[in-house]
């Protein structure tokens, strides 16, 4: 079953483009990564799904229901954590969390128990005033208010800012635990290592358009190789012209470096004809693949 399904979802802010023809399907029980640089349209997509902004055209369903018609019903089962959390001045953590909890139909005793567990797990003092909390601790308030009603879908929009590495680890563990219970997660980020750690599939978005959807594993494997050659003399650029699959070619006086995707035989023939002093072939990290999509 598809938890999220968007069809040609498009959002313009006046004349400027937010997203265009976004087609996404997130399956039940999946951790779906959503990556792209700032301003690519990640937040626009998420905010449209949550009903905070209204689509210009196209449609989307969550849990099989249209987002524009069943917003409140859908939000009952969504936990949302934005990149920056803002709460009311002068409120105590516990008051904010109770206020948040009261919006949900779920049994209040179950929620109270859950709040306590999460607070202990994240090491957050519920009696403090929100104004007095550090950025990271405010984020914890955000996590608790997002998860206290045990949502079936968790939507995270660049959620890790402000959390120290240890807390980030705990947070990811928490998400994995939820995922094991069958919870679907949409995780937006511009930090690839996070996505790589957590997600099953990933969509790459650029200038408001989805440019690729793939499994994390297949995105990283057998696609590109990073070649680093050290040469005795400067290699002429023409040696590499006409070969398909070479990108990011950099030639200096005694080195050649490029990304390669294609038939390995073709490239080894050329390399064999060069006067090499050293050679390195690496799996590029996701960062490099990612940059490749952006250049």
């Amino acid at each position, binding site marked *: 079953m598809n938890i999220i399904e968007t069809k040609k979802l498009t959002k313009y*802010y006046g004349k400027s483009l937010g997203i265009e023809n976004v087609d996404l399907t997130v399956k039940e029980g999946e951790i779906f990564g959503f990556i792209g640089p700032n301003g690519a349209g990640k*937040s626009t997509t998420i*905010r449209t799904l*949550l*009903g*905070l*902004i*209204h689509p210009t055209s196209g449609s989307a369903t969550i849990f099989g229901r249209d987002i524009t018609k069943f*917003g*409140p*019903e*859908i*939000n*009952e089962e*969504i936990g*949302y954590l*934005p990149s*920056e*959390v*803002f*709460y*009311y*001045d002068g409120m105590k953590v516990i008051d904010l969390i109770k*206020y*948040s909890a*009261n*919006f*949900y*139909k779920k049994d209040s005793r179950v929620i109270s128990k859950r709040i306590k567990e999460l607070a202990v797990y994240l090491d957050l003092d519920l009696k403090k005033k929100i104004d007095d909390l550090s950025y990271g601790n405010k984020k914890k308030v955000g996590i608790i*208010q997002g998860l206290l009603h045990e949502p079936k879908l968790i939507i995270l929009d660049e959620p890790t800012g402000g959390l120290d590495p240890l807390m980030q680890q705990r947070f990811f563990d928490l998400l994995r635990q939820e995922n094991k219970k069958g919870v679907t997660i949409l995780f937006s980020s511009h930090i690839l290592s996070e996505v790589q750690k957590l997600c099953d599939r990933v969509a790459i978005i650029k200038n408001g358009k989805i440019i690729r959807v793939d499994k994390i594993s297949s995105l990283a494997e057998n696609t590109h190789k990073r070649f680093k050659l050290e040469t005795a003399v400067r290699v002429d650029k023409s040696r590499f012209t006409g070969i398909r699959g070479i990108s990011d070619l950099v030639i200096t006086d005694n080195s050649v470096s490029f990304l390669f995707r294609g038939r390995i035989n073709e490239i080894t023939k050329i390399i064999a004809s060069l006067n090499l002093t050293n050679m390195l072939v690496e799996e590029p990290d996701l960062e490099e693949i990612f940059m490749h999509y952006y250049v």
Partner: protein
Amino acid sequence: MNIFWQELRFNRRTTIIWMVAFAFGIFSYMSLYTAFSHDVSQSMKLLQGFPPVVRAVLGIRIESFFTVLGFFGYMLTYLWLIGSIQAMNLGTGILSKEISGKTADFLLSKPISRFKVLTSKLAAALVIIIATNIVFVTASYFSAEVFKTKDFDVTVFALTCLTMLFIQLFFLSLGFLISVLVPKIKSVLAYSLPIVFGFFIIGMLDSVIGAENARYLTPFKYFDVGYIALHSAYEWRFLLTEALVVIVCVVVTYIIFTRRDIQAPV
């Protein structure tokens, strides 16, 4: 109901301050009545010395000034002014604070429709205004009873006091409308003060010009204390004008707010 109670909690302190200020102000002012009415001829002479234009601007009617109702009615214009600021602040702030405080994301990603969010906030604002008016009427009645020299007409007095509620409703709904028309309100006072004072100044000019139709332009002219005293009633045409303004403001607020895009906080 969640938002409703929370709004009452948020506004509790401010509302109490307004209530205390009203009660204290009314009582202090009315306590002057004894001294003022003690030597009517002397005071009357003083007032007659004012040029008619000044009296018109200040809303002083010599014929009624020395009854407890007239004395109260004189101050009422200024109480309206203060009450309008309270209502306008409340109306402008109760929605816009979610945008300026960047809490709109939190609130509107909850399982609740925009329609209900607005209705809850409207209901909370209404309760606050009504509660303020209860304190206002009680304080006024109590002060009038304490300082009166002769008995007064309770119906006229009640109608006179209730004008505050209508004036506040006008500015409350106007505030709501402003809060959805202006994309981001950083300071509520920057909108409420100029607008309220603007209407008030129009009212003062009206008094000088005396053009009957100009009275439609400002809520401060919808209720004429003299008319109420004479007829024990409001003027229907102004009551209808007010109702129309309130309904239009509220309906437009609903339409805009339910369709509005909530931009990401930056």
